């Protein structure tokens, strides 16, 4: 939450000679981030980011206390000077409206009726508001905003005469109820909003969020009801987000405010109305306070302070810091007894919360840096999944492939298969990112489409795909996919890449099998690894399951003693019928003798395939006679098994 704080206003609560730059620096290092310091005319404006756990700092007064604490820690003279506002004088007339509240909705309500003279605000007030980013409208509205900025508690003002009601019932709204906010917008409520309702059942306030048109201050307002409500933060957030009304009041109220602050803001408001709007109290002060603010004590061990921060902080130093921040402190032998003020009661609960207060004002920049030297409980595996992922990516890079990162979320028409099987988002941002993909290929093909001007494309991606499971999180499966776009793209180029990839990972027992559609299925042993898909003569893709690769990849090296006797090499050409796989022929040839070390397809011309055969024995030189015999067996078996002829 961002807030603009005015330097001269801050100094009404802060006694120091420090310049704005110094204040900004020390606040940023020890309290809140001052994003910008801007000099506008005579004034300086601090643009401050207040974190969501410190709604109490949406207040000039509270920030002055922080500034005093951090400046003095930096050895700069600085004092917090709180203002004491007089008790709001009560007229002897009873409060004219019966306010029926609900303690589950409101923690405190304070109200009073005043006679006022509406008009423009004095220059100092309107200038401070404008510099804070709040429009100065008239002295009545301005007081409510000025008090909110100064004290940190939103306030509201009704035109009392417009209210014209004997009762105001505070309750949850019902679905379908309507209201028109003071900016003229009409809303239909979904129910559960905190509303104030008059005798006629009409909504006269959307508490904590925005006032309504039917009770807003007008140019001729003569009497006001100054009204402060301290509310259930959860309901405020719901209302504010559902209706899209993000006023500063809503933003502060939805975090929850100290009800003790209600009284300070109330007194300040009454005083201001008197000062700038000729205000005169004409009723008793109403104070309905069902949920009293509580303080509590937190015990913090001195050891723990030192251990968590990492340096020894003397107890007296901790006490000094905490007191400057509004905490009460009692030093015991081994611990501090810390009394938490009501304004911090919601979020300072455990010793770590107190230690944070001490440490941040002490100064994080004062602490040394020491890398903790311990080792974790795990043994290191060199060849883990990340090792193989990097190896594969680098191999593809050096073979000319470019890695892409596409989105895991895709549109319905990019999803392969029945859409009911897809993991689907309940609240997608756009319809082209609604389903979680089960294949990377459609995304890669999209990349190809989006790079039309490239004549040759070689891309790959290694990423998760998501598979629905019943009653459990979807299974996240890593896939390795790639696409080749090229004039007359060759299936064998992709096959070659996959073969070399697997070989480099120590995998030897891979097999490529025919598919129903153009392309091939790839297996490692009995495990299906993936597929190659020929889309057209210029476009081929492949997708492999990385888990299967991991299962078979190995760094294990096997040493085979070098051959003592030279091999004999020859080529045999067979004329085969179409449809006979060369691998089947090679396998059959190998079966003929264990002296055949290797058979590879060397050449192919129409139906004639030339097989390159290497014969070798470990213990002797092979003779021509031996070779001739094996050759005979080869030819016989190939001829009979495949109805082939020798060329």
């Amino acid at each position: 939450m961002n807030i603009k704080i005015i330097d001269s206003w801050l100094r009404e609560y802060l006694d120091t000679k420090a310049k704005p730059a110094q204040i900004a620096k020390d606040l940023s290092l020890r309290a809140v981030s001052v994003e910008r310091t801007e000099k506008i005319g005579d004034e300086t404006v601090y643009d401050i980011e207040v974190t969501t756990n410190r709604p109490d700092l949406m207040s000039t007064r509270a920030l002055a206390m922080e500034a005093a604490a951090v400046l003095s820690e930096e050895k700069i003279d600085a004092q917090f000077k709180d203002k004491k506002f007089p008790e709001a004088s009560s007229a002897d007339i009873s409060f004219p409206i019966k306010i029926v509240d609900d303690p589950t909705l409101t923690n405190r309500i304070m109200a009073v009726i005043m006679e006022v003279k509406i008009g423009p605000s004095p220059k100092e007030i309107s200038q401070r508001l404008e510099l804070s980013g709040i429009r100065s409208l008239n002295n009545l509205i301005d007081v409510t905003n000025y008090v909110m900025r100064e004290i940190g508690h939103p306030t509201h003002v009704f035109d009392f005469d417009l209210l014209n009601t004997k009762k105001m019932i505070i309750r949850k709204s019902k679905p379908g109820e309507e209201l028109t906010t003071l900016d003229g917008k009409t809303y239909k409520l979904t129910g559960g909003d905190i509303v104030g309702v008059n005798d006629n059942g009409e909504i006269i306030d959307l508490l904590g969020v925005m006032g309504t048109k039917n009770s807003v201050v007008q140019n001729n307002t003569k009497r006001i009801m100054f009204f402060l409500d301290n509310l259930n933060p959860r309901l405020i957030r719901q209302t504010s987000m559902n209706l899209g009304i993000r006023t500063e009041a809503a933003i502060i109220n939805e975090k929850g405010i100290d009800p003790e602050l209600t009284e300070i803001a109330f007194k300040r408001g009454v005083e201001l109305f008197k000062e700038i709007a000729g205000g005169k109290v004409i009723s008793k002060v109403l104070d309905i306070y069902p949920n009293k603010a509580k303080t509590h004590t937190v015990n913090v061990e001195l050891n723990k302070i030192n251990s968590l921060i990492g340096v020894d902080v003397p107890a007296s130093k901790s006490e000094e810091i905490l007191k400057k921040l509004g905490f009460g402190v009692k030093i015991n032998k081994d611990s501090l007894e810390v009394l938490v003020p009501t304004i911090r009661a919601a979020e300072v609960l455990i010793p770590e919360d107190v230690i944070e207060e001490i440490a941040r004002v002490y100064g994080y920049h004062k602490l040394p840096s020491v890398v903790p030297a311990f080792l974790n409980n795990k043994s290191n595996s060199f060849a883990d999944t990340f090792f193989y992922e990097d190896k594969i990516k680098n191999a593809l890079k050096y073979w000319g492939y470019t890695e892409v990162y596409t989105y895991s979320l895709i549109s319905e028409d990019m999803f392969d298969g029945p859409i009911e099987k897809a993991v689907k988002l309940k609240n997608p941002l756009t319809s082209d990112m609604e389903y979680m993909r089960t294949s990377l290929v459609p995304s890669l093909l999209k990349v190809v489409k989006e790079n039309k001007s490239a004549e040759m494309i070689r891309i790959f991606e290694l990423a998760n795909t998501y598979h629905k499971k019943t009653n459990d999180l979807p299974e996240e499966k890593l896939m390795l996919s790639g696409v080749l776009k090229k004039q007359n793209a060759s299936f064998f180029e992709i096959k070659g890449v996959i073969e070399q990839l697997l070989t480099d990972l120590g995998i030897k027992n891979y097999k490529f099998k025919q598919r129903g559609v153009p392309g091939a299925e790839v297996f490692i042993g009995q495990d299906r690894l993936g597929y190659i898909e020929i889309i057209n003569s210029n476009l081929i893709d492949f997708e492999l399951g990385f888990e299967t690769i991991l299962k078979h990849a190995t760094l294990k090296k096997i040493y085979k003693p070098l051959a003592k006797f030279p091999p004999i090499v020859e080529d045999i050409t067979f004329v085969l019928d179409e449809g006979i796989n060369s691998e089947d022929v090679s396998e059959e040839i190998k079966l003929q003798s264990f002296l055949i070390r290797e058979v590879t397809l060397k050449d192919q011309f129409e139906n004639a395939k030339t097989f390159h055969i290497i014969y070798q024995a470990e213990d002797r030189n092979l003779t021509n006679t031996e070779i001739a015999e094996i050759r005979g067996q080869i030819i016989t078996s190939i001829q009979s098994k495949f109805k082939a002829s020798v060329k």
Partner: protein
Amino acid sequence: MEEELIRIKNNALSMIWDTDDAKELEEIKLQFLGRSGQLTLAMKQLPKIDPEKRKEFGILANEVKETIEGALKEKTHETKTQAVKSHVSKIDVTNPGIKPPLGHLHLITQAISEITSIFEQIGFGRVRYSEVEWDWYSFGALNFPEGHPARDDWETFFIDAEPSKKYGPMLLTPHTSSGQIREMENSKPPIKMLNLAKCYRRQSDVSHVPMFHQFEGLAVDQNLSIVNLKGVLDYFVKSYFGEKRSARIRPYHFEFTEPSFEVDVSCGVCDGKGCKLCKEGWLEMGGAGMVHPNVLKNSGIDPNKYNGFAFGWGVERVLMMKEGIEIDDLRLLYSNKLEFLEQF
């Protein structure tokens, strides 16, 4: 006759040394050692020489022959070598080379490699936890209260699936902090982990992409302190950005840490002095903090015995902060335009 042999030798040698041409050498060889060569003819005179002087003559003649042959061989070799050199020196070395293939790894992969290797050196083991998570792991166990804005469906992606009775609704994790809970459930202290995985948030603009990467460090042991966290932050910043850079922490707030910090890195352009590109010498990098005792408890670790610190930053963010990679629209990283990817 001796003088004649010596004259032939000197004549041959001087002619050999005089030429650089292979063809001329061939002719010299013929001229002296050929069938009607000078030396050959001279040796044919052997019968006309006195018998006592024949042996001497023979020896000398052979010596001359060897000398001439040796000189010829040497000169021929020299000439050939020169020929090769002059051929090689005729190539245009400024012509493009025949390059082997070279593709590209995505910038994010490169950043991930660097980041994980930096942390591995100080004992943070790399892990990768799931992207689709339960609310408990992404929010509940991390001490987020009910109704916290991040749990709204304005900011987080929820899955259209049956919620778990135990773990709440299914969602896409908006931060790698869910990995802290997973790690603490899987292993007992001492813990030093770096979870690096994809995260998802419901926003898309110049500085936000709906899918991005974060790296999350978690250390849990006895008596860890803010001093230790500072040590790790400083080490990373110096290792990744350079020795001259430093890290600093400022007060901040997260639900799952207490104390919480915003981490800044000193500006590389102005060396921390302040310039147009930074905030008074510093750039925001990400969040960190001491693990909230509730988070430890929720993960089955005794907060009275152990404590820890954690930090979580965007990979894309630190990547963009590295010099030379000032991409003006973060979505470009995921646009997969080849002319962009091929720059790296």
